[in-house]
């Protein structure tokens, strides 16, 4: 009786306040259906954290892998369902009170990211190549390398299964990044995708100091570039009075306010985006991080982060800065040319396979930027196709790197790869296909994607850049062919590495990489059409 009286008394002030606050705040409207891919991935990630907390250690690896794969597949199904419905067409594409845009490019990029992440997770889950409960990852990342604590953790069968929830969080951020319709959401997405990656980079089981150094470098530089991005957002907000992309575009076309604010804002935001995309002159982290991180993580980063970063770059440039085309194009010309040259030329001198692939990824960032330069729907289509093709090829290439091993772990020095084609022609052949695709040889996906972006850029009037791009391609091709020659036409060293037999996971990942690379090279039209259908940003 007394309790009931007390609670009914409690309602008195509450009622009086609700009467006072008659002008109630309208509840925001969230389109859960269209955003479902995000919810699925983040939900799986949160579940993964719960699994970490409560599942017994022995069961965690299997549960986490299952959950992660399920989450990614579920999200991909959701993307397909959304894409096949009409919910995202036209004005309805701008959802969640204008914070997120789910339009053609968003759905294409989200699908691409999910596919690539799926393949990368197969590599992450591989445990036969590096036998032990923790696979290619440190048993306990917090132990000092070489310390008794590390040996203890290894002996106890510890495994850092947090890798999988972290990957899912990163994927969630990547899905949101190209969909962000205002700069603050973009920043949140950028952090959500970056923070797990910083951690993942430091988890390698072998050469842990190198791995931790990579994580530290990536973290410090990444934090620095995030600060640039945020400062750019502040300046743009100061200019336009809004962080919404379309309103920034409106303010820019009306040319209200100070151009200094606008241009420095554009510049600073660009720095943040180019850093994530790994374009020169903000590429310096790439080789060290790619080399130090566990190879599966490198594959994930190289493929998925690039897609997400270029997706966001495209949206911000096309939607918010579309009216400023004449201001930013010269800048982008320079960046694209520099990136291609740096990537192609420096990769010539590399002696480490992972570093070589890192510089190759820088060069490819430059090629993608050529497509961005076109600043029209054809360029967009080319970029979308390029990202998909390059993603599969690069994951496949890193999958090969995980398989070539000597007793100390992965044998990444180029000299150790000599004669690999004679020992295991299949694996070396797969690597050769990826290299040919990187080089842009016909009948591989690389040729089609380069053709798509270069032709779009030519139509868009960026012919000098295209000339440089073709030259850079030739330089890079020379190098890739040299590696192929090394693998197939030189004598294998006596104590050279062996190609370990992986489990079904890596095999599937490798097979998918080869298949997609060849199929996109031979019959690219369906995917090009898909990208073409998708290629229009909703403002």
């Amino acid at each position: 009786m007394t309790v009931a009286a007390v609670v009914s008394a409690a309602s008195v002030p509450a009622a009086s306040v609700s009467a006072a606050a008659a002008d109630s705040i309208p509840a925001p409207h969230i389109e859960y259906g269209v955003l479902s891919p995000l919810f699925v991935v983040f939900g799986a990630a949160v579940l993964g954290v719960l699994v970490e907390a409560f599942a017994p250690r022995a069961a965690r690896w299997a549960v986490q892998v299952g959950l992660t794969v399920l989450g990614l597949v579920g999200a991909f199904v959701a993307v397909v369902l959304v894409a096949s419905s009409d919910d995202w067409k036209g004005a309805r594409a701008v959802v969640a009170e204008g914070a997120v845009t789910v339009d053609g490019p968003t759905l294409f990029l989200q699908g691409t990211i999910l596919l690539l992440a799926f393949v990368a997770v197969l590599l992450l889950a591989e445990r036969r190549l590096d036998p032990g409960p923790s696979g290619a990852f440190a048993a306990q990342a917090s132990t000092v390398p070489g310390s008794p604590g590390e040996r203890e953790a290894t002996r106890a069968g510890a495994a850092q299964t947090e890798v999988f929830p972290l990957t899912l969080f990163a994927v969630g951020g990547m899905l949101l990044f190209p969909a962000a319709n205002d700069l603050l959401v973009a920043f949140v997405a950028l952090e959500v995708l970056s923070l797990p990656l910083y951690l993942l980079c430091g988890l390698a089981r072998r050469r842990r100091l190198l791995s931790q150094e990579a994580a530290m470098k990536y973290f410090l530089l990444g934090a620095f570039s995030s600060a640039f991005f945020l400062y750019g957002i502040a300046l743009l907000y100061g200019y336009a009075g809004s962080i919404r992309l379309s309103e920034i575009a409106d303010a820019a076309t009306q040319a209200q306010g100070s151009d200094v604010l606008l241009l420095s804002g554009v510049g600073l935001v660009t720095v943040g985006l180019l850093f994530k995309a790994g374009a020169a002159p903000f590429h310096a982290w790439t080789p060290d991080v790619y080399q130090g991180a566990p190879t599966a993580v490198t594959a994930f980063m190289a493929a998925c982060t690039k897609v997400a970063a270029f997706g966001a770059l495209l949206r911000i440039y096309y939607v918010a800065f579309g009216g400023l085309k004449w201001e930013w194009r010269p800048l982008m010309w320079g960046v694209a040319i520099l990136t291609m040259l740096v990537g192609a030329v420096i990769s010539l001198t590399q002696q480490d396979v992972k570093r070589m692939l890192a510089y190759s990824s820088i060069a490819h960032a430059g090629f993608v930027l050529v497509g961005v330069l076109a600043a029209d729907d054809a360029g967009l289509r080319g970029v979308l196709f390029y990202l998909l093709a390059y993603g599969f090829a690069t994951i496949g290439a890193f999958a090969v790197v995980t398989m070539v091993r000597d007793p100390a772990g992965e044998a990444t020095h180029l000299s150790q790869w000599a004669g690999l084609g004679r020992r295991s022609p299949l694996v070396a052949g797969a690597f050769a296909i990826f290299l040919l695709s990187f080089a842009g040889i016909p009948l591989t996906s690389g040729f089609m994607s380069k053709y798509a972006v270069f032709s779009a850029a030519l139509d868009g009037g960026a012919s000098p850049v295209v000339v440089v791009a073709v030259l850079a391609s030739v330089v890079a091709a020379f190098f890739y062919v040299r590696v192929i020659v090394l693998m197939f036409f030189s004598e294998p060293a006596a104590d050279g590495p062996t190609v370990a037999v992986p489990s079904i996971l890596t095999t599937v990942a490798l097979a998918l990489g080869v298949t997609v690379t060849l199929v996109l090279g031979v019959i690219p039209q369906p995917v090009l059409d898909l990208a073409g259908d998708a290629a229009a940003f909703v403002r």
Partner: protein
Amino acid sequence: MNDTASLLADDPWWLIAFKAVCVFGFLVVITLFNIVFERRVVARMQHRIGPNRHGPFGSLQSLADGVKLAFKEDLTPSTADKVVFFLAPVISTAPAFLAFAVIPFGPEVSIFGERTTLQLADFPVGVLYVLAIASVGIYGIVLAGWSSGSTYPLLGGLRSSAQMISYEVAMGLSFVAVFLVAGSMSTSQIVAEQSDWWYGVILFPSFAIYLVAMVGETNRAPFDLPEAEGELVGGFHTEYSSLKFALFFLAEYINMVNVSALATTLFLGGWRAPWPISLWDGANEGWWPLLWWIAKVVILIFVFVWLRGTLPRLRYDQFMKLGWKGLIPVSLAWIVLLATVLTVRRETDIDTRTLLFTFAGILVVGLLLSFVWDAVAARKEATKLEVRTAPRQRDAFSGGFPVPPLPGQSLDEPARQPAHSGAAAPDAGTTGPDTAQEGDRG
């Protein structure tokens, strides 16, 4: 802007200044009072008399102590960071005064013919202001510990900052329920909303959590680990002397008044008269409320003293466990529960009693489950420990020192020599094995 705020906005500058001086003076005087009060009450609890020499009932003791401190040598350790060492007491003391600014201690009155309320300032985010200012005070403690350049203060400063931030979370969470029901963060508005029922009654879980958190937040017994004399000498202010030390002391006591005043404001109806007195119509008019308010604050101060006189100090791990594993989850659960009840009551026409019984049922089941879980976990832990500690029997004199058995171990009774079992029986158990071991070690 509510009534209080608009009334305060009309204050002329001299009235503001007057009130600021009064608040300052009140805090200094009540600190002097509290020190004597604490010493006298604790003395009574310990069957002593306490200070009774200076002034009537020893009431000037704290003043005498203060004057004495002013004439002590002001030491600065040679390893100290001089500037920070100098600033830390200031950073610690000034926010303690400032936090009091938004506390309402009376209704509308007339001061020198000017209508105003007994409150220095009123913000829409008053409680947030108190929390923010209180956090600044923590800096003073951390910096004092760090700048001393000495081990004990460093550890004491770290401990107290860890402790204060841990309990600040619990404290902050306990306010959420108040804001939920009051619909405001302004202190005067919250007092106004409590005209019928005090939140300490209808939101009792929040009040209980706040009471625990406020003791932790002020580093008072039984949570006075940063100053644990047995371990850390004096904690963060080990190296401080003279008036700098007095300032830390002052800050601690003002903070006690602050959290008590905040508890009064948020949970005990502020300056409103307690029940039997509130039947008298004039109880909440004019200057009377100031009396009720001071009485409530002094009662809370008495609780502080009472705790100090009653409870032993907690161990650090127990203390952090209480904060992180007890108060925070319970607060979160309570907030969710309260919000759900309020929403259900508003959105549906389910009978309040049904609702309450449902939640009580869920709560009881949850509690039972948690007990079962705890018991199972404890048993598992015990068996694990037994398995892990290989020799169940252990040497009670390993390394030459008598050591107690670990959990799960049993003490091996020293094998008695048949020769000793006769005449020298009382000594055999203690000296016999000892000397034998001495012999073994050679």
